[in-house]
């Protein structure tokens, strides 16, 4: 098996993540933050240790680092939490449904609206486009750090500066950027939403909402938190405010090991490795007749991209192509990748694309074997 579907979920995970997840199921098996006994206490301490690692990684305080089930969950907290009556949102034109659906729902439910700006390779133009979409009643700019379809990055620092100037909340969907791209609250982002199971190499069922605490968020889920239990209103302090019900304890603890792994390797080295694999893939695939690339990553433009490449095998749909590759032992995703906006942008809304997305564990050999397989498939078309 050659797994190249890491934009959906990284696999394999570092050994330390498997070990900690397994250990947490038994050694940290009590409910954290609920009971006073030693077992509950030690579990809560292990959760805190992981929370503190995640917080430090994103330049945040532990109490502003909220464990969620995934990035979608975090984006719902952030977008719906910031919505007010009649408010307006701004998003890019390549958002994943994880962002655009909550934006659409929040705008609809608050009697407001949203506008999209065009994200392009020219970063100054992207910021200009975003600024033009902002209105006096804009509550937040919600933007992906990088497209999950064609990898195009957005200028996060510059957009953060724009939002600061306009005094609106900047929410970053870091599903494709956390663990590779430099994404930190220190750059002026107000809320980072991240998946634990992608570039942070944690288990599925983990995610993070990281805030700088500067914008008050309404809750969309209320319930038991193990704190301030005398009140029927939700705690006003974080992370408890957003962590109702028992969290994915083993997952949250193991996520800390994933973050450790990324920190040891460094996001820069991981990004460099993965982009080099993308360049290798693009260079090889562009010479195969019958293969169409939708974003060609080269040494010259790599700084504008996250390590994701969309392609198709001519004469077949993306799902048929992905199925053929799967039969050959190459695991990649075909279809729309839950991001119809991005597919409209690149003209693949009707058929989708096959997505090549390597991880820190992927190798040149993986890429070369995939290219040989693509040559064989394309030759038969």
């Amino acid at each position, binding site marked *: 098996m050659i797994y190249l579907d890491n934009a959906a979920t990284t696999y394999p995970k570092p050994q330390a993540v498997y070990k900690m997840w397994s250990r947490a199921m038994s050694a940290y098996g009590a409910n954290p933050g609920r009971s*006073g006994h030693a077992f*509950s*206490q030690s579990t809560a301490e292990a959760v*805190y240790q992981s929370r503190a690692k995640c917080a430090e990684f994103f330049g945040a305080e532990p*109490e502003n680092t909220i464990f969620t089930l995934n990035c979608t969950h975090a984006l719902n907290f952030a977008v719906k939490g910031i919505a007010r009556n009649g408010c307006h949102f701004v998003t890019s034109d390549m958002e994943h449904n994880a962002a655009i659906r909550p934006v659409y729902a929040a705008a609809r439910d608050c009697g407001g609206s949203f506008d999209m700006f065009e994200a392009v390779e020219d970063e100054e133009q992207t910021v200009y486009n975003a600024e033009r979409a902002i209105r006096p009643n804009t509550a937040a700019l919600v933007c992906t750090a990088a497209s999950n379809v064609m990898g195009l990055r957005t200028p996060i620092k510059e957009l953060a500066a724009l939002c600061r100037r306009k005094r609106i909340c900047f929410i970053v969907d870091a599903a494709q950027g956390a663990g590779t791209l430099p994404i930190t609250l220190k750059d002026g982002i107000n809320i980072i939403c991240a998946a634990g199971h992608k570039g942070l190499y944690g288990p599925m069922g983990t995610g993070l909402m990281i805030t700088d605490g500067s914008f008050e968020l309404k809750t969309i889920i209320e319930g038991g938190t193990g704190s*301030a239990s005398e009140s029927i209103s939700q705690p006003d302090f974080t992370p*408890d405010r957003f962590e109702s019900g028992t969290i994915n304890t083993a997952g949250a603890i193991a996520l800390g090991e994933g973050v450790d792994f990324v920190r040891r390797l460094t996001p820069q080295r991981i990004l460099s490795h993965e982009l080099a694999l993308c360049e290798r893939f693009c260079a090889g695939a562009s010479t195969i007749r019958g293969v169409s690339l939708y974003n060609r990553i080269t040494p010259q433009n790599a700084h504008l991209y996250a390590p994701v490449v969309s392609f198709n095998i001519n004469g077949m749909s993306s799902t048929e192509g992905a199925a053929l590759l799967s039969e050959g032992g190459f695991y990649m995703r075909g279809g729309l990748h839950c991001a119809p906006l991005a597919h409209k942008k690149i003209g693949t809304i009707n058929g989708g694309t096959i997505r090549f997305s390597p991880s820190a564990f992927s190798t040149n050999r993986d890429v070369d074997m995939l290219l040989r397989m693509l040559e064989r498939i394309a030759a038969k078309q």
Partner: protein
Amino acid sequence: MTIIYIKSFTQAQKALAFLQRHGIRCIVERSFGKAGCGFALKITDKNADRAEVCALLGSIGVRCDLSR
């Protein structure tokens, strides 16, 4: 023994880690009082002064004024 009541386990644990880095021994325990379920940061270091501890905690955003 100085006891500081804190609403959130995360805040309590952050306070504990911070104080320990400053050489002040303490533990976190679950507590229950008028304000409902919460957490008690117990300063077990006999030499620790409450005012000094609270000043330290204030520097990381942890307040000492929660009553039980």
